[in-house]
């Protein structure tokens, strides 16, 4: 079993749908974290709940990260904040009803692909997914 040291100050993003961890890594722009932060991406970790999952551990300053984004990318995710080796907060991201100019529709047939200054608007469906209000394509995190 692969082992990654426990972190002292930072966050653990857990219960990420297996295979989408790298996509989240890029969406959170973790590659742009300042040089002091260490990031570990664990893929296909065994999980009692979901069989397999991905995990991201970040050691260091995470103050400029936007964790709200995780709620609509993958609502089953949990975020644990750790300070001085102790859990200080556990966050379950919320799903807002509408997202405006936060994520982008990838459907090349959507009007947003050609219309200038067209807001990217996604609405939450009853089944907890986000769909572009123009073309109704579901937003999915790319693996």
């Amino acid at each position, binding site marked *: 079993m692969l082992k990654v040291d426990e972190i002292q100050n930072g966050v653990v993003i857990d219960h990420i749908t297996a295979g989408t961890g790298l996509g989240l890594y890029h969406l959170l722009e973790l590659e742009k974290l300042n040089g002091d932060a260490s990031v570990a991406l664990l893929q296909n970790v065994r999980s009692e709940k979901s069989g397999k999952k991905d995990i991201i551990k970040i050691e260091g300053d995470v103050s400029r990260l936007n964790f709200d984004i995780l709620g609509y990318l993958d609502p089953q995710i949990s975020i644990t904040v750790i300070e001085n080796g102790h859990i200080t907060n556990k966050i379950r991201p919320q799903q807002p009803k509408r997202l405006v100019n936060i994520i982008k529709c990838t459907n090349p*047939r*959507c*009007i947003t692909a050609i*219309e200038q200054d067209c807001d990217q608007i996604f609405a939450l469906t009853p089944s907890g997914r986000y769909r572009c*209000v123009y073309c109704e394509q579901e937003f999915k995190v790319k693996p």
Partner: protein
Amino acid sequence: MRHLIDPADFTLEETLRLMDLADRIHDDPAAYRNVAERKRLASLFYEPSTRTRLSFEAAMYNLGGQVLGFPDGGVSSAAKGETVADTIRIISFYADIAAIRHPKEGAALRAARFSGIPVINAGDGGHSHPTQTLLDMMTIRRRTGRLTDLTVGFCGDLKFGRTVHSLIRELARCEGIKFVLISPEELRVPDYIIEEELQARNLPFVEVRTMEEVLPELDILYMTRVQRERFFNEEDYVRLKNTYVLTKEKLALAKPTMSVLHPLPRVNEIALEVDDDPRAAYFEQAENGVYMRMALIMTLLGLKDPKTGEVAFEC
């Protein structure tokens, strides 16, 4: 001011009132020939369409109105790169109502957000075609006398067919509809339609691979075209293509009261020999489309029905 971008923009009650008006126009079109006098329809077709464009234009002329517009995006300012938002802002000064057909999905919704006049979605790419859904509903009701307690079969390409998805959603709002989904595995109704429209409302549905096994129980058979390019390999297409062709022989299995609908154009999925069968309703659909579009234009413009002295519903 209201628009029709998606069939769900109108409540079921509003849709039924619209159908009532379309039925009254159907029965006495002459009574409506001056209703929209001095009103103008902007017919904004960014891609060619024969039936839908002519149906809208015929509807406006039948009401005594006028039509302006363009039949193809290549001859409009869109070819110079003008946005849909700018175009509709300008058109709002020239016309009272607009019908827009655009190859991009969501274009009509974009237009509606910037429009000073009611916008009707006349088809936005593979996404939605609400007037087709309304005329499908009207035809089903005229044929069966009801929009409740029906077994409705959808056959062919149920994955990419926008008319199928819209009609399933619209019928899901009615009481007692049983859905029979007949398609090859590759062209099944998308899971999100099944989950969000059928399972979420506990509506009865079955998925089958051949039409013969379900034809005897259907009240409505909604046919669509299975296109070669939708298959991953040629072998599967060749193996399956005739499975979804309606012939006189297969029709013999159906109830004498069943109706066959098709959004048209058809290629070979309904044999020509079926056209003379009284169950063939697809040409009636095209006719009903003009009356439904007349009713829609009247209602969105707030024009009163000369027969009742009222609008179908307030917009």
